[in-house]
């Protein structure tokens, strides 16, 4: 077995209440007990431990930071840390065997990475090692059984098992939801409504079958009817046969297509207004444009002849301006210098008229030429359109129209040669097309009269869609059926798995339940009713709960502790469970941090808890903080001094942090209180107790009058009584101190049992003035001084077993104890 991990030191700087660096050293004494009033900073030590071990670098009680709430990690740093330029951080040193590991963690900023040493020791903490008093009651009273289960499952490393159960529940729920999902069936209903034109709005096999027979098959053949919507039905087989036959023929759609193609070449219709026959199509269009081209050619030739001198166009243009009306009159030709009078025109006006005439002829020619060009362009377009239309129709024609096809091919060949050869005449081909159109119209009319738009092909396609819908619906039902079966199997398997997990959890709970009750009885006494950790019944679907119950009475069995147990009992239950779990599972790091766990306990129970720590957790490293001074004193009295360091927070220094004092109350501390104008009643009582315990230890006083079950439990009155008895047996008689009635001193002398006050019950000192306290303190010091060595004046003694009286523990003295003379006060 590997050496366990122990803390060696814990240092805080700028963290929580500690502004200046403070180191708690555990090298010499591994355990630490700190007393401090509320708000003095004692919990900051536990906070430091929680912080450095936390995964997220924060404290559970700080909550999550939100906008403007200053919660979360912000509260880790001392409020003056930034101002004092102190980097908030926590350091830790851990030892295992001889190996020492250290780590440091920043307590501000976003990167508060966990040091590796903390990660290492965290793996040893199966159960959280920190127990906070305020959280104990929550566990018993506030937590739901589900939260308690999650907590315990977490402590026992059963969180993955809890997750498995949670995931199984979630899975079952989701499968149930999937079973209730009707999306697939709704889709089928939606489509069937479309397919039947809303005649069938939700699937009804009989209605769908009736629709198919009535609206799909009957128009084609009233004798054709499906008995069932299946491909095996004889009517469906017949439908397939007829569809194949129909596909080998030209159907209505094919005929219509051929007709459209033929009509695009040539068709003759009656004009609705004039009742005259109108011929349309690519062929007449081409013929027509051919005529237009011929006309344009003839006209162009005519106009060209008229404008024979087109070559003189530039001359006419130039001459026009020279001989225009209003221009400077010319006597001779500007080119040949022939006198104007000698020209054929004979005058400038004559020349002007001649030029005007020729320019007009040129314009007429230009128009004729453009018309010819336009006609030829139109002819080219008409030719292209004709070729395309011919190609389309030829492609559609089958054997049934072989004659027309042959003619069209011949016509097409000749058309293709245009314009190199003259366009063929269209009379014959137009007649052939006309004849075919007539035949097609007859065939189409015949088919339309017989079955309308219905075809076997369409009918089969429709029936096939209905069949596909039926299959889709059947598939949805089959999937649902399979899912139902799987859901049932899943439920069975879930029960099996849950049962095994339940068994595992109960086994672990049992390992805790017995030690938990042992500890609980040690705190609350033998009469404490045992507490049971109970899982829900086997048949309960929610197994992720733990009930904490107590058999309070015969007629109050298995009741919730919150309603029957006292505050301290409830605390004890939770504390006992946590301690039992720590002892059971944290074997690799036996460290416990207890933060103010005795808020609601009476004196007996405080002593019991101390005794429990001493007897059951003697090998553990324990850090305790408490604001309960009596509890602190019990710790000092009963825990081993060699393992424990006791200290107290005596004040808060704003410039540094909590101010610590040694656990011994000194005379100076008491006088400092008076100087501050404060009562020192508690410090006096503490100092008296410390002296009493020390002198009892030094004198070897037997105090074994306490019950065995509270082996380390001391009452100071017991000590006083025992000391008085010892002194009487040893014939050592202290002198009484004159002055006010001093019950404490009297008890020492007489051995009377006295109950002293405490920090929360000030009597008998609390009611006095500072003056009374000073007088009281002087009486005590006078009495105490009697216990100084008469020879050397030292105050530490020892009593070997064979001696009846103690001797001075000073090695050079060893004088037998005798009371010194009482000083006069």
């Amino acid at each position, binding site marked *: 077995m590997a050496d366990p991990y122990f803390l060696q030191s814990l240092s805080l700087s700028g963290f929580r209440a500690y502004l200046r660096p403070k180191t708690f050293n555990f090298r010499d004494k591994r355990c630490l007990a700190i007393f401090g009033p509320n708000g003095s900073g004692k919990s900051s030590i536990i906070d430091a431990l929680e912080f450095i071990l936390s995964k997220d670098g924060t404290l559970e009680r700080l909550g999550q930071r939100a906008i403007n709430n200053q919660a979360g990690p912000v509260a880790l740093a001392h409020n003056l840390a930034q101002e004092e330029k102190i980097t908030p951080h926590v350091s830790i040193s851990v030892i295992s065997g001889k190996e020492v590991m250290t780590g440091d963690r920043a307590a501000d900023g976003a990167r508060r990475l966990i040091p590796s040493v903390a990660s290492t020791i965290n793996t040893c903490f199966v159960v959280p090692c920190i127990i906070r008093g305020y959280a104990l009651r929550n566990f018993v009273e506030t937590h739901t059984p589900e939260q308690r289960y999650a907590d315990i499952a977490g402590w026992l490393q*059963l969180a993955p098992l809890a997750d498995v159960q949670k995931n199984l529940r979630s899975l079952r729920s989701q499968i149930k939801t999937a079973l209730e999902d009707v999306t697939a069936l709704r889709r089928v209903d939606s489509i069937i409504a479309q397919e039947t034109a809303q005649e069938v709005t939700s699937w009804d096999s009989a209605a769908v079958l009736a629709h198919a027979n009535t609206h799909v098959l009957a128009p084609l053949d009233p004798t054709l009817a499906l008995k069932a919507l299946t491909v095996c039905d004889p009517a469906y087989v017949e439908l397939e046969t007829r569809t194949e036959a129909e596909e080998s023929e030209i159907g209505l759609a094919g005929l219509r297509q051929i007709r459209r193609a033929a009509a695009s070449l040539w068709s003759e219709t009656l004009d609705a207004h004039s009742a005259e026959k109108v011929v349309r199509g690519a062929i007449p269009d081409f013929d027509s444009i051919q005529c237009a081209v011929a006309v344009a050619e003839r006209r162009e030739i005519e106009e060209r002849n008229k404008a024979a001198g087109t070559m003189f166009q530039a001359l006419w243009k130039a001459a026009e301006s020279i001989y225009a009306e209003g221009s400077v009159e010319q006597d001779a030709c500007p080119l040949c210098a022939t006198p104007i009078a000698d020209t054929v025109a004979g005058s400038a006006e004559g020349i002007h008229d001649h030029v005007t005439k020729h320019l007009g002829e040129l314009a007429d020619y230009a128009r004729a030429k453009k018309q010819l060009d336009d006609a030829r362009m139109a002819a080219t377009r008409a030719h292209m359109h004709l070729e395309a239309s011919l190609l389309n129709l030829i492609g559609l024609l089958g054997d049934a129209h072989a004659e027309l096809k042959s003619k069209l091919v011949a016509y097409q060949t000749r058309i293709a040669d245009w314009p190199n050869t003259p366009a063929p005449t269209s009379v014959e081909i137009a007649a052939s097309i006309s004849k075919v159109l007539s035949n097609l119209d007859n065939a189409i009319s015949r088919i339309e009269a017989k079955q309308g738009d219905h075809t076997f092909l369409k009918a089969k396609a429709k029936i096939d869609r209905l069949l596909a819908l039926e299959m889709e619906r059947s598939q949805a039902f089959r999937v649902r059926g399979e899912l139902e079966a799987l859901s049932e199997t899943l439920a069975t398997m879930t029960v099996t798995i849950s049962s095994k997990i339940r068994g595992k959890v109960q086994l672990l709970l049992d390992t805790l339940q017995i030690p938990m009750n042992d500890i609980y009885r040690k705190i609350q006494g033998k009469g404490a009713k045992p507490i049971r950790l109970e899982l829900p019944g086997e048949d309960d679907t929610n197994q992720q709960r733990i009930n904490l119950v107590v058999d309070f009475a015969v007629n109050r069995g298995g009741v919730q502790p919150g309603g029957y147990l006292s505050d301290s009992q409830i605390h004890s239950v939770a504390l006992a469970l946590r301690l039992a779990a720590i002892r059971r599972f944290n074997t690799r790091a036996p460290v416990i941090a207890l933060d103010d766990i005795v808020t609601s306990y009476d004196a007996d129970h405080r002593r019991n808890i101390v005794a429990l720590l001493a007897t059951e957790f003697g090998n553990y490293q324990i850090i305790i903080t408490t604001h309960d001074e009596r509890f602190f004193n019990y710790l000092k009295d009963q825990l081993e001094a060699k393992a424990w360091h006791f200290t107290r927070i005596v004040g808060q220094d704003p410039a540094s942090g909590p101010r610590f004092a040694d656990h011994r109350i000194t005379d100076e501390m008491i006088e400092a209180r008076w100087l501050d104008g404060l009562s020192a009643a508690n410090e006096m009582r503490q100092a008296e107790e410390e002296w009493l315990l020390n002198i009892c230890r030094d004198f070897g006083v037997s105090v074994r009058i306490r019950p065995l079950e509270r082996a380390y439990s001391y009452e100071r009155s017991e000590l006083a009584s025992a000391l008085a008895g010892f002194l009487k047996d040893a014939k050592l008689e202290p002198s009484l101190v004159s002055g006010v009635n001093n019950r404490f001193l009297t008890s020492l002398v007489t051995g009377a049992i006295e109950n002293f006050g405490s920090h929360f019950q000030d009597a008998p000192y609390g009611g006095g003035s500072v003056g009374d306290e000073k007088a009281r303190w002087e009486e005590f010091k006078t009495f105490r001084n009697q216990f100084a060595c008469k020879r050397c004046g030292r105050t530490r003694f020892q009593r070997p077993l064979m001696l009846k009286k103690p001797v001075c523990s000073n090695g050079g003295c060893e004088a037998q104890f005798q009371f010194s003379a009482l000083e006069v006060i």
Partner: protein
Amino acid sequence: MESDSDERETPDTFLNALGESLTGYDCIDMDLAVILTTHILKAAPAANAVAEARDAILRLATERAELPRGESVDG
């Protein structure tokens, strides 16, 4: 301090053993057992483990629904 002689079974070990024991049953639905073992019976399951298991079960139901009738299935 108690001895650590009785080494505790880790959740991972326990869940692995649990998964194996499930597939060991004669009457168990093997396909479903595999789905649970793959997705759910894990000490550190995927974030969407439940959704993945659900989808796997739905796929299994669909596959089984598509099998020709009469063909046997596990379980």
